[in-house]
């Protein structure tokens, strides 16, 4: 697999380098769908320039990156393009290795044990995946990530979303490899960048417990002991990182600038998310209430999904990533690219997916319509923000439909694996499965 992967990496780097050299780079770097106030490269440069002038980069509303990004780009600002290409490459390799490990450890082992234990009903053998069809999945995952137009746009715009994705991919890799310390450290880095990966604690813990054969039962002491250990590592690293960031600039004013900004959403520049339109229209009186509602919406799905998917933590991770990308306060297409890269892992669910045609058409159409309606609104003046928000809404609805479709397909496959593929009612006639 090394050779095709290397070829893929070369192709991806070539495309990005070609786009960097063309005039499209500036155009893409300005697009609001690709960059947001927390990921824009222009703001990173602005922050570094302020720092050189002796002013705190967090003064004013221009720079919302974490101090570690300042540290990184202080030395690498001249090699920014290489850095972002490297970040994409690291993400792709991490996802490749992670999916390979997942297929080997989880899927094959589980299937082997289940087959040997004769736990599958006779007629659902066609649902079982063979190693042959799983051979190319890691490569497909890397390909989906690197050659996704969203990722390419995000890389060419030099949006720090690429760095975020790299950290989250490394987190996925280390979790699936079973290394609790590194997983906690990378999760802490991801949370430190933007607060939302906090919800990925749950799938990480579930997976690691599964791997160490700790039963996921809240009545057992071993369960709580593992949770305490993991949270200690996670919170400890977070504490260390925050203190270290304090020592970089000698002040705490990065906290309101980064986390306060993400949580309180003061900047209402249009993006592909759901926050900006609501908060532009809202009365000040209700702002706090709706802010809480919207932010809770991101974190709210963790517990129910964890309870439902406690035996399938990697799918839970996928769903959490999707939920974060859809409901976070400043989403960009780079966030979407990350969870879409993991879709080939569940390509075996294709026979149960119901809305895939609709979803793909809507996503394609909306991606094309975003710049069109932006132009009509801002430049031509013949549309208004409602048009752009309609496309945003539609885009997010399509994503939610995609995620819920995969959820349904996954659960249905699990159901069939337990109860057999051709369901029969009590009297023997054919039954159909209805999602209530």
């Amino acid at each position, binding site marked *: 697999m090394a050779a095709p992967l290397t070829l893929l990496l070369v192709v991806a780097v070539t495309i990005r380098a070609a786009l960097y050299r063309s005039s499209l780079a500036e155009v893409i770097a300005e697009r609001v769908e690709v960059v947001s106030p927390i990921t824009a490269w222009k703001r990173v440069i602005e922050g570094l320039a302020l720092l050189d002038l002796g002013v705190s980069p967090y003064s004013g509303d221009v720079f919302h990156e974490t101090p570690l990004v300042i540290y990184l780009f202080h030395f690498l600002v001249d090699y920014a393009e290489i850095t972002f290409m490297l970040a994409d490459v690291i993400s792709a390799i991490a996802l490749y290795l992670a999916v390979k490990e997942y297929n080997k450890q989880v899927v094959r082992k589980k299937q082997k044990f289940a087959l040997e234990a004769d736990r599958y009903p006779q007629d659902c053998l066609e649902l079982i995946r063979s190693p042959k069809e799983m051979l190319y999945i890691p490569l497909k995952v890397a390909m989906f990530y690197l050659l996704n137009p969203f990722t390419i746009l995000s890389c060419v715009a030099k949006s720090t979303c690429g760095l975020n994705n790299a950290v989250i991919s490394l987190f996925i890799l280390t979790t699936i490899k079973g290394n609790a*310390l590194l997983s906690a450290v990378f999760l802490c880095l991801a949370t430190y960048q933007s607060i939302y990966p906090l919800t990925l604690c749950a799938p990480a813990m579930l997976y690691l417990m599964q791997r160490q054969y700790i039963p996921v039962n809240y009545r057992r002491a071993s369960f709580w002991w593992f949770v305490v250990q993991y949270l200690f590592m996670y919170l400890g690293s977070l504490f260390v990182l925050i203190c270290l960031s304090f020592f970089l600039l000698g002040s705490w004013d990065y906290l309101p600038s980064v986390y306060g900004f993400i949580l309180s959403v003061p900047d209402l520049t249009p993006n592909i998310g759901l926050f900006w339109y609501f908060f532009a229209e809202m009365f000040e009186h209700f702002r706090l209430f709706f802010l809480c509602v919207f932010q809770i919406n991101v974190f709210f799905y963790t517990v129910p999904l964890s309870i439902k998917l406690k035996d399938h933590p990697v799918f839970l991770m996928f769903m959490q990533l999707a939920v974060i990308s859809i409901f976070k306060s400043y989403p960009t297409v780079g966030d979407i690219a990350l969870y879409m890269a993991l879709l080939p892992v569940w390509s075996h669910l294709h026979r149960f997916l119901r809305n895939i045609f609709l979803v793909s058409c809507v996503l394609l159409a909306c991606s094309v319509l975003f710049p069109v309606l932006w132009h009509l609104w801002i430049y031509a003046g013949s549309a208004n923000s409602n048009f752009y928000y309609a496309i945003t809404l539609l885009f997010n609805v399509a994503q939610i439909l995609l995620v819920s479709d995969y959820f349904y397909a996954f659960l249905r496959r699990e159901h069939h694996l337990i109860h057999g593929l051709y369901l029969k009612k009590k009297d023997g006639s054919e039954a159909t499965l209805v999602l209530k």
Partner: protein
Amino acid sequence: MLAAIIMLIFICFCVHFQNTAGQFFSSGHTNNWAVLVCTSRFWFNYRHVANTLSVYRSVKRLGIPDSHIVLMLADDMACNHRNPKPATVFSHRNMELNVYGDDVEVDYRGYEVTVENFLRVLTGRLPPSTPRSKRLLSDDRSNILIYLTGHGGNGFLKFQDSEEISNVELADAFEQMWQKRRYNELLFIIDTCQGASMYERFYSPNIMALASSQVGEDSLSHQPDLAIGVHLMDRYTFYLLEFLEDIHPASKSNMNDLFKVCPKSQCVSTPGHRTDLFLRDPGSVLITDFFGSVRKVEITMEQPYLLKVQEKTYSYVDQLPVSEIIHQKPKQKDWHPPDGFILGLWTLILLVFFKTYGIKHLKHIF
């Protein structure tokens, strides 16, 4: 000549501070300013222009020069095509007194009389291109007379039929003036309906305020002239003008006489005044402290002593070379992360690495 004498006086003041300064500057002010504003336009508001012009006339007669008067008028009366006597504005019936005169100097005319310009004149926040005649160049030793007239209501004054100034804005403008030391004492006279509401909100020290009517009352106009066809003056200002005509530059009348101008029998409304913010007793304040600009001259036969001025000798040798003077820019220091941070970060990274992989596995990795 006059300037030389005044210079002499100031030097004497520096030398004989205890003796003469007390009585010389008993009022605390050294110059006088007047801001006279008529906030109405159109022919039927003739009386407001006549009000302002009559106060202008009195103030000029009592000694304040045009350079110290900021006159804001719509100035569409004298040359209005409805004026049967062009180039005149009369204050008395039968055209007894032409307050327009030959030497009226209007600083803000026509559409320039706006709330913004008025507040900018008061606070001094004018664009640099504003000429001196349009500025209120007062200092902390200026006594300022502010006269407003027009159509008003409870807490506001209408400017040119399109905008309003509220009593809160006015109070805040005065506070700005106080904080910027733009006045020593301020006399605020307003002749509008419900005029007392305009001085209700003042909170800066050294302001005395007079109004022609209380809240809920209307200020009424005095007499129409049948030849001109409009009311010529408002009652309060008419009787104020009559009172001021008796004042001459050396007069010793004080503010208590001013408060008695236009009792209820003459002005149908009840004039009001406010002195609680004023530090001196109104009985000791002369009318000419605000309406006039009296220059006190003291002639002395003694020889003034000039203070010795310290001279700073500057030798050529002590100066920096020209190149250093020109290039005295601070050197651009690039920000660098603190060493402690770099050390800490990389120690952490190494710790995690070794914890994960263990030192004994190192040879398998490399």
